[in-house]
């Protein structure tokens, strides 16, 4: 999945975003929902299937990557190039 941004008025809901982007509920990660990025400028984000992001290309910003993130350390202790254990 990828992230899209959309500009909406204050207090907007996921339904408002779907209407603006002309997407269906099954196209988006409803658990992620509509997340305010910068409320001052009315910028919000939604997480959508990559295929659906192409359909919303004219009304949305993005698509933006949603890469995995990992701690700067792990539990692997033993060689000098092992990840620091923290």
């Amino acid at each position, binding site marked *: *999945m*990828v*992230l899209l*941004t959309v500009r909406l008025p204050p207090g907007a809901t996921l339904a408002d975003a779907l209407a603006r982007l002309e997407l269906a509920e099954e196209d988006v*990660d409803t*658990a*992620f*929902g509509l*997340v*305010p*990025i*910068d*409320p*001052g400028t009315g*910028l919000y*984000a939604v*997480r959508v299937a990559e295929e659906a992001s192409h359909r919303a290309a004219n009304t949305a910003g*993005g*698509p*933006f*990557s*949603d*890469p*995995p*993130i*990992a*701690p*700067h*350390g792990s*539990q692997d*202790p*033993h*060689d*000098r*190039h*092992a*990840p*620091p*254990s*923290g």
Partner: protein
Amino acid sequence: MRVLIQLRPAPDVVAAVIEPGVRATAADVAGRLPGVVLDQAFAPVAVPRPVPASAYGDPLSLNQRVEFSYAPQDAAVLVRGEIADDELSTRSVLLPSARRDVAGVFADPVIHSTPTCGGDGPVGHWQDVARLLGAPEMTVEGHDGSGVTLAIVDSGINAAHVQAHLGREVIIDTERSWSPPGVGGTPGEYPVAHGTMCAFDALIAAPRATLLDIPVLLSPHNVAGLLSDAVAAYAHLRTVLEAMPAGSRSLVISNSWGLFSPGQDFPPGHPGNYSDNLAHPFNLIVASLDQAGADIVFSAGNCGRECPDRRCGFPDRPITGANSHPRVLSVGGVDTGLERVGYSSQGPGRLSDRKPDICAYTHFAGSEANGPGTPDTGTSAACPVAAGAVAAIRTRHPATEISPAQLRTLLHRTAEDRSTLGFDHDYGYGVINPPAVLESLGRHTRHAA
């Protein structure tokens, strides 16, 4: 540039250099070398001549069995000096032709001890870190994190473990803590892991800070976490910040995580890329939260040239994305001897050249979250150590008095410089020095009064 100059002076001079009871000086050996400032403090050193072991050997080859002769008619002598950088190449070539006793001019590079790496044992103890940060004195003066909210955006906190190892009560605000959809559990009651180490390390300088437990790295998506989990976490933290009274806003956010491989991102130059793109939604929300008054602290990463984490996938400039954001404090790692640890990522950063900003302590015996006897390691530990120091400073200096950007500038200015040049891409501006920040803020307040 500093150089070593190899000379073949008269045999009696060489004999004087070799003779233990005689003190020969650089001037005795070299006289005056044009364009070279001799280092008179460096005692001349005799260097043996390699001589072929066989009578039929090649006198110019080292790829054969050789013996080394210290006989005065064979040995050479090294002296140390400096040649101006812009004359180095010409003087290095011309010196041997101008002076027949000059055999060669060689580089004299700075050498370092082997840095601390991932598999090494602890260097110092967390109480050493507290002392180096000036934490006992700061606590006495009331800079202990009281009333400051410190969010640990990581893998969840086990408060009982932190409490047992720190030997004092840990304050976790469960109401204002947050977890991604699908992540169960109770704030402060997660299994002991990376996030517990981060919480412990943050409390070294700010023992009375109020922790928020934000376990974004416990993603239900079958990986450590997704950047979108962090986007949602930051949206929550914005509501936390805005709910605080404007006059006493103090929210510090500690982030010991990042993106390891470009293969998991859109490529640099793609408009949806994260690593190199300030317009990515996460980088936008970071900027917006900084603007609203939050102090955002990120680990620089563990991709230092000497011993990088084997997961590091960026061929260069490994401080990427928000870890290199101009509006965050990007933190590299030093051990308690103030030496940079070999895994601490070096700049320049991808979103901002001048990264890391500063260094803080890591690789010390602390939380034992990774098992008994294991150190708190990585820039993962350095980041919360710095975040805790920022929280201690914020105790009496909320964001309305000094903005996050102003505080970053003060942290830069007061850091203990570890190079001769000011900012560098290994240590940033130097090692964090919270008492110097407080001293500077105190001066400012006295002037304003």
